[in-house]
């Protein structure tokens, strides 16, 4: 009896692990078969080639350093966008006049793709971290702002009125009622923002790399550009693609965890 009940969660655990790994494993297998039917050019990407290149890049190609550099830019850029987006979003969402002033500006900049500001960013900030950072911040800012404004506009007005009848000053209502009530929307905005930030950093580093002839920016995007433009090492590019994807997945899981911790009342 007891062993059966104890074994049950274990079995479902293994089942879910199996389910999660089965499809990727099949894809890798199919890819390997496909690669083996082609000419045995060592540069053509196959799982085995990619795996050896990965080990190579980690041990002496600076892959980890480049990934961390890109990740650092994303974290800082996201942080800047989070502060700006949430603060402006709270103000725009709760004050009609501030909204009327900023809304046209926001709506006219929002459709401009982050990469479109790259030339200006390079001109102003050069080809290093500040340029990449400005693009990431720009990209992450809008999902955060828009979702914060949306969240604030949907806050149950009764909660604000209730706080007013308890003698809570307006500024504190913003921090203690409107902010937590809008938190689910802000978290959604954060996840979207983190996604576009990560996409934007790769694109920005690629772009800065192209513009500056392969030097300058650093990061995993620039690494990809160098492999593409100079050594035409497709295996290395695939390694970078996989690293980008895995990091994105880890970031998403981290956000779900943070969401869970930050909003226990929703579970």
């Amino acid at each position, binding site marked *: 009896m007891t062993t059966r009940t104890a074994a049950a969660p274990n079995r479902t655990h293994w089942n879910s692990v199996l389910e999660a790994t089965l499809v990727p494993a099949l894809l890798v297998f199919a890819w390997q078969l496909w690669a083996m039917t082609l000419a045995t050019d060592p540069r053509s990407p196959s799982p085995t080639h990619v795996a050896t290149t990965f080990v190579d890049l980690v041990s002496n190609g600076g892959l980890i350093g480049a990934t961390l550099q890109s990740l650092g830019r994303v974290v800082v850029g996201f942080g800047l966008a989070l502060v700006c987006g949430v603060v402006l979003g709270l103000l725009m969402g709760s004050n009609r006049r501030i909204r009327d002033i900023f809304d046209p500006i926001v709506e006219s900049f929002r459709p401009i793709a982050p990469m479109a500001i790259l030339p200006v960013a390079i001109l102003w900030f050069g080809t290093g971290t500040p340029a990449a950072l400005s693009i990431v911040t720009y990209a992450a800012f809008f999902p955060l702002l828009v979702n914060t404004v949306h969240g604030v506009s949907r806050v149950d007005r009764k909660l604000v*009125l*209730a706080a007013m009848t*308890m*003698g*809570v000053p307006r500024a504190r209502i913003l921090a203690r009622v409107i902010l937590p009530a809008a938190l689910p929307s802000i978290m959604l905005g954060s996840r979207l923002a983190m996604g576009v930030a990560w996409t934007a950093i790769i694109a920005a580093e690629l772009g800065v790399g192209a513009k500056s002839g392969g030097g300058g920016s650093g990061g995993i995007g620039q690494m990809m550009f160098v492999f593409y433009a100079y050594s035409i090492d497709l295996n290395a590019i695939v390694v970078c693609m996989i690293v980008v994807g895995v990091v994105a997945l880890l970031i998403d899981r981290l956000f779900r965890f943070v969401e869970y911790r930050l909003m226990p*009342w929703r579970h």
Partner: protein
Amino acid sequence: MNQETAMSKLRLRNVAKHFIAPRTGQLTTAVTDVNLDIETGEFVCIVGPSGCGKSTVLNLIAGLDTPTSGTIEANGAPIVAPGADRGVMFQDYALMPWMSVHDNIGFGLNYGTPGEGLTREQREKRIRHFVDLVRLNGSEKKYPHQLSGGMRQRVALARLLANGPDILLMDEPLGALDSQTRLILQVELLRIWGETAPREQRKTAIFITHDIEEAVFLGDRVVVMSTHPGRVKAIIPVDLPRPRSEHIRADPRFGQLSDEIWDLIRDEAYRAIDGTEAPAGPKATAVEKVE
């Protein structure tokens, strides 16, 4: 004259409130010609069909809205804004979903004027006192969505009382409860209000309900409102002795008063049944009385 002004806790004079629909510009008269004097320590119930402006009157007293015309005074001073001296218990409780029972009850103490000058320990002690009072011990860490309707209502009541308001404004506070819980909480409410204390130590309470018998059971007076436009139709003094227990419902005077109030609103209640927006409360009573 002067003395009368000094005695009234709340004074409403010719109060009217119109709403103008933002797009169509259509004018709704929510209430008009409301005159009401409420004394310190009085428990006043307001009954009337749905849409007669009960919530509007309560919001005006709370300072959450301003009258279109007329004046409202508390302790002789005009009401211009919400304040912790007039606590409100909203129809749907308005609890903070991200806060535990404990934190909800302590909201005003921790962030609003009622907590000014209190140490952390004093605030905690006060929160615990009101948790005990509404019998929510053991549920302090729960979130509102984990509570039954009756428990949520008790949290809202405890939050209201923890802020120590001078005037209690309650909008159908027991409306969502099953009838047993409701009867229990009615008695508890009277106890908390201070039924056994001398009159000058009691809170001043305004209690909106659609249940006539609830109004008679709780109130010192029952304000009967009518609709189209919303106005005060009659004010019925409830001359039943205090403290009141469940047994008072068997008192013939209790039935007389209930009938009297029912007669005042029956026409409108019937009209509301025929119309599309039949109010739940008076309709239920209507069926009872017809049989």
